[in-house]
């Protein structure tokens, strides 16, 4: 019996709603075709006879492996063309309420080293803990935390975000 038989399409819909976009953004850190990688990861999940203990963590691992594999098989020319094309469209939805510009954030993220950018994406938009990120990337928790802090500092400097004075003291 597959996972589709056990849980049905409800689980698939919920995972897509809550994590689909984050999976695509995470896979985009390596390859040019993140949609195919995420789709294949979901299909692999549906073929499992029993659901993994941590479905989201399992999916992040499968997406990461698939994206790395796809980046290795893609040609250099194709990668270069895709990178140029992706730079023109931001990774995030445009919203008037956001203080940050989606295009600027995308460019700032692209300037980060891949191992640090991976931690930021998994933490901010994937919602993973540092322990999960450490297991996912094969590093220690402290290393993941250090990468996260360093990346935030670099993004803050790059985007020019000021520190509000009423942050932690009032809460």
């Amino acid at each position, binding site marked *: 019996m597959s996972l589709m038989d056990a849980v049905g399409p409800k689980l698939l819909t919920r995972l897509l709603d809550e994590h689909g976009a984050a999976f695509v953004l995470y896979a985009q850190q390596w390859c040019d075709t993140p949609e195919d990688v995420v789709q294949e990861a979901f299909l692999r999940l549906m*073929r499992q006879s029993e659901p993994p203990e941590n479905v989201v963590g399992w999916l992040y691992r499968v997406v990461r492996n698939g994206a790395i594999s796809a980046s290795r098989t893609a040609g250099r020319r194709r990668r270069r063309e895709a990178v140029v094309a992706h730079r023109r469209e931001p990774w*995030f939805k445009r919203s008037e309420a956001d203080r940050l510009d989606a295009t600027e954030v995308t460019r700032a993220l692209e300037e980060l080293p891949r191992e640090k950018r991976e931690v930021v994406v998994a933490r901010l938009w994937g919602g993973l803990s540092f322990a999960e990120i450490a297991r996912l990337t094969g590093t220690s928790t402290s290393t993941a935390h250090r990468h996260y802090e360093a990346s935030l*500092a670099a993004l803050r400097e790059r985007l020019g975000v000021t520190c509000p004075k009423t942050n932690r003291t009032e809460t």
Partner: protein
Amino acid sequence: MSQDESNRDVTGRRPDEELPPELEAIEGELRSLRPRDDRLDRERLAFLAGQSSVIGRPTGRGAAARWAWPGACAGMTAVAAALSVALVVRPEPRVVERVRIVKVPVRAQVDESSRAGAHRVAAAPSDASRPASRSRVESRGGLARRLGRSGRPGQADWSRFGSRGEYLETLDRMLARGMDPWGEPGAESKRQPRLKASTSHAPPPYREWLKTMLDDQARVDRPTGPNYRGGSS
């Protein structure tokens, strides 16, 4: 609830994961951004998921049928490879040498002068009808008796053979088989007094035997021989 989860605050962060205030600000700003969700084709993904749950899952006879041809192909490939290797590394065929004795019937030369002993030739079975063991090998003592006690061709008892031709044929046959036609068990020292001078312990070489036999043969062929019948044989 594990200890790791109990140590987290309301934001899901552990105390050692706290960030400086300036980084918390940029973290909040970045978290407010939403990744694009229009890149994933949900309908197609749902369709493929349903399709794979039905078609892509081989069960029962379907699974066996799916692996039947690949398995057969792999098996035959393995057999072909094994036979190819065996063909290359097989050992050379072993050559077996077998000595086969072909019986050739010998026509006995009947001597007119020895008609008296013709009944013996007629009574004795021929080589073809004689048992193989007897025709091939004759006991040493028996031949010595037929050849005479002295063991010399010149002193042979011709009457024990059907003819002189049979006698010579017997000699040739025995010499061809490496047998001593004049030998007699226990009489080696008496039969070879001449050769003892040259070889005291070892048997005389074949050439000396041949020379002796030829000398004896020449003595027999002399007209003064005791069994000479005037060359009519």
